[in-house]
């Protein structure tokens, strides 16, 4: 296949991944790497490098819209970015030490986990277990625009959330993904931050986390310009379109379909990793 045709096909596939990623809120990165490796036979290191680039593009591209809505909490984001960026550097180093098969197997497990997150209903935020004094002294409690004026919220279990964020950062650096699903779980489920604040702040953090591993990825030659170009432009276009139509589609059915796709990709990824075909 020549470069022109391959570039166009990858651009189309990336646009679709970005579109579905925006609709489901999981981001495009998690389907991009299996798409590039399984469908196009691209080496997983190049796939991860291109995916990492697209993650930065979508995070920064969507941030402008989120910021205007007033949901994101810049303080929570900055505090947790200490954990995610340190994790991302660790992950980016680990990825050079691990054999390709191991990376593929871990990726498959993350896909299956993401499938589960996509298939289950939007997590309910239960009753808060009391504000964490650490959250109070770190001035993390805030408010967000509700239907009847600003609604205040308080964060809980700050150390647990911080630790999970370190794990999310490590996965991001290890696999070249945003690991947005894990970030939202840490903030929404553990720290009891309202779902909208969690998702928008998570999106904010994804770009900074990915930038922390980007230098190491560049250094190792994972980011090939010929491949990163169609992936970045495709995912960016797809995610911007996805954000526009987000309000008009029934996301519940879509999340099920996307979950099924992720599960299939995860199983195939593990199968390929175990049989040494990656």
């Amino acid at each position, binding site marked *: 296949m020549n470069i*022109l045709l391959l570039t166009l096909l990858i651009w189309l596939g990336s646009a679709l991944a970005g579109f579905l990623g925006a609709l489901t809120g999981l981001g495009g990165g998690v389907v991009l790497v299996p798409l590039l490796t399984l469908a196009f036979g691209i080496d997983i290191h190049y796939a991860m490098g291109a995916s990492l*680039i697209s993650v930065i593009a979508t995070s920064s591209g969507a941030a402008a819209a989120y910021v205007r809505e007033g949901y994101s909490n*810049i303080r929570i984001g900055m505090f947790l970015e200490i954990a995610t960026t340190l994790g991302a550097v660790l992950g980016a180093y680990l990825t050079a030490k691990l054999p390709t098969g191991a990376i593929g197997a871990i990726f498959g497990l993350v896909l299956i986990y993401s499938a589960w997150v996509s298939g289950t209903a939007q997590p309910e935020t239960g009753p808060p277990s009391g504000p964490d004094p650490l959250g109070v002294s770190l001035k993390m409690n805030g408010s967000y625009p509700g239907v009847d004026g600003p609604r205040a919220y308080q964060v809980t279990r700050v150390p647990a959330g911080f630790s999970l964020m370190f794990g999310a950062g490590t996965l991001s650096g290890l696999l070249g993904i945003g690991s947005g699903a894990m970030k939202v779980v840490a903030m929404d489920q553990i720290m009891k931050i309202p779902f909208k604040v969690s998702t928008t702040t998570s999106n904010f953090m994804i770009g*900074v986390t990915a930038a*922390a591993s980007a230098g190491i990825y*560049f250094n190792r030659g994972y980011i090939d310009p010929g491949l990163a170009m169609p992936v970045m432009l495709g995912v960016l276009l797809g995610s911007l379109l996805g954000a526009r139509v987000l309000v008009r589609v029934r996301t519940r059915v879509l999340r099920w379909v996307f979950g099924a796709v992720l599960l299939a990709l995860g199983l195939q990824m593990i199968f390929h990793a175990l049989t040494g075909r990656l």
Partner: protein
Amino acid sequence: MKKDAPFTDLRLELMIGNLLRWGVALAAAVVLAGGILYLIQHGAEHADYHDFHGPNGQSNSVSGVLHEAATLHSRGIIQLGLLLLVLTPIARVILSAIGFIMERDWMYLTMTLIVLTVLLYSLMRIP
């Protein structure tokens, strides 16, 4: 502090949002320009991404990228766009640091500087 300065926090976030949007738009424009040139020059060649070639096959140093971009090498122009993209979240962190200085929030300034140090450490890996 947050109650005293909600205006500053909000204004800071709006500035950050605009910075990110323009940063991404600029990076995408540079990548697109380089990409079109790349396809004109190399579109008919055989694509080979099946095996990983390591860091030797391309310009992955900042000076190399700038040199290639300046001499209108398509892959160098794309790399320049990608570097601009990586710099946007870093610019965001720098802008946050300035915001926290204006709010005289030294605790959050310290946190921001820690994040910035990690980011710059990674960026310094680009030879």
